[in-house]
């Protein structure tokens, strides 16, 4: 589904990613772990098309297409979804409106008609229940005044509605208490499917207690320094990042 080859990325004069190689197949869950400043967030931003970065080398192929050539909205319509580390507050735009506008943009791209108002409400209410959210959130401005946990749940709600192919979760566990972490994880787990892949970018291992990855990659100084199975995360937790950074 996703193939990253020798990817190098700079911000200004500073090289952040120094040759990333990663192969992700449908149905897989990959965790990308690493200390602060290792380039984890840069990788998720690059995949979702955020500006401000310069790709200096390498390639990213998504479902056979050059992902880096696509503007962010096309990536989203093609099924790439980024759950933000810091979801943006958008005053004056209701959550339900954003969800509807987003879903319709994706449907339109795939030649489908606009979603029927009743079907949409049914769908949305089902997902809201899944994430144990109050329906009132739908009518509030996007993320405005939401707690950290509510924002993260809202990201997963959008993901559940848009049903992307490649889900990138950027530090989804940060700022979550244990109850919110469970709910968010259950939401993510319910979306697991053989034709959907996940990249979970995280600093800590605790999210991986709830969402079990197939592969764990350790990013340090802009490179993947170690890859392994789920057990690698536990080893990291025990030994700390200095263990791999030194390697």
């Amino acid at each position, binding site marked *: 589904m996703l193939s990253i080859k020798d990817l190098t990325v700079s911000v200004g004069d500073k090289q952040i990613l120094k040759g990333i190689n990663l192969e992700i197949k449908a149905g897989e869950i990959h965790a990308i772990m690493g200390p602060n400043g290792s380039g984890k967030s840069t990788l998720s931003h690059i995949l979702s098309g955020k500006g401000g970065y310069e790709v200096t080398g390498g390639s990213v192929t998504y479902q056979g297409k050059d992902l880096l050539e696509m503007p962010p909205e096309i990536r989203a319509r093609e099924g790439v979804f980024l759950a933000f580390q810091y979801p943006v507050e958008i005053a004056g735009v209701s959550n339900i409106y954003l969800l*509807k506008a987003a879903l319709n*943009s994706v449907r339109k791209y795939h030649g489908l008609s606009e979603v029927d108002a009743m079907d949409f409400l049914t769908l949305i209410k089902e997902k809201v229940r899944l994430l144990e959210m109050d329906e009132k959130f739908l009518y509030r401005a996007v993320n405005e005044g939401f707690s950290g946990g509510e924002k993260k749940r809202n990201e997963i709600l959008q993901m559940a509605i848009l049903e992307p192919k490649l889900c990138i979760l950027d530090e989804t566990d940060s700022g979550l208490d244990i109850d919110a972490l469970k709910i968010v994880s259950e939401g993510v787990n319910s979306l697991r499917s053989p034709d959907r892949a996940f990249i979970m970018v995280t600093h800590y291992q605790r999210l991986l207690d709830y969402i079990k990855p197939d592969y764990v990659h350790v990013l340090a100084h802009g490179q993947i320094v170690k890859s392994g199975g789920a057990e690698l995360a536990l080893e990291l937790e025990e030994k700390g990042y200095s263990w791999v950074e030194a390697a």
Partner: protein
Amino acid sequence: MNAVAKNQQSWLQALRTEALTQFAAQGFPSPRAEEWRYTNVSAIEKKRFLPVSESQTAVDVTDILTVYQLKDAWSLVLVDGQFRADLSALDGLPEAVTVMSTANALDSEAETLQRTLGQAVSATEHGFVAFNTAHFTDGLFVRIAAKQVVAKPIQVLHIATQADSLTATRTVIIAEKMAEAELVETFVGIDNSYLSAAVTEIFVEECAAVTLTKVQSEADKAYHFGGTYVKQARNARFTHHNFAFGSLLARSDIHSDLEDAAECELNGLYLGAKRQHLDNHTRINHNKPHGISRELYKGILDDRARGVFQGRVVVAEDAQKTDSTMNNRNLLLSADAEADTKPQLEIYADDVKCGHGVTVGQLEDKSIFYLQSRGIDIETARHILTFAFANEMVDKITLVSLKSMLLKLLLQHFPQDSYVD
């Protein structure tokens, strides 16, 4: 001048003569005056705008009425400054609610007008008020008897149909003690260059409440001057919503004088594009203690448009415990757009709570990216965010029919596919 000429009572003649003398002496305001420093009206003087005679006013305005006339309101229509009973909807007014054209009121409400007209603003204010006082043809007259809560909104529609025309209208609104009313002033025109100069005087008596929404949606080439001058008695409440969408050059003055514990809320939204120049000038005079004022003006400026906000709050020495906030927020959509903002607080009392804030900014990249990352194209993302910025002001409107009209106008500016209210 037609209707008014019939009832040239001596008091009115004296008022007009004085105003004419005033206007002859000072002319239209010059940018040298501090309160006009950002707005040069000399273009108006160079043009030759002429009053319209009745015979010319046969233009079909059905399309305008379809969009702008509120179905659930009593409405009074003025075409080129003249009352059109045939287009107005004034049936079923309760006895306690008087709604008529100013020209008719000069006959049947002469005493009331003599005591009010020119009392909320004098011809010495500036050239436009002097000009209006000397030349007004007609307008809206409303009087709500004490303790009456008006069941439906009252709308006045000013429609300009003639090229190079000049209309001067005068509106007087009186809400007697404990009365409550909601009013809407709408200014529209057929695509021409013309000058519309309207002065509105409002008297909100003790414990009365008036909400007035101004929808300035004049033609692209039009010049608009509108002055709203309010006298708020003890405990009176006044709320103004000022939507400035149209005109090549428009200036609105909103001034209110507050007595004890009066409350004043001024909201505004100006949307400028191309070469539009939209100036809003507000003044709140807290004359007595315990007054409350809340002011929020928002501007969205695209292309080479220029928006001006001058807000002045004056707290008199006697106006202790005044509670006042004033904010002006501007969104610039183009590098060539300009926002001039000048909030002024003048405080002569020592025990007050007053604040003001100003911002001039652009759409945030992170917000645009957030929407893009959800599949929304960049242009729509910009429209959604700009619309949201503006919609805060439309959201304050409680009258459903008016809100829906404003939403339609807003969505024309910022189109987006699947808007849901």
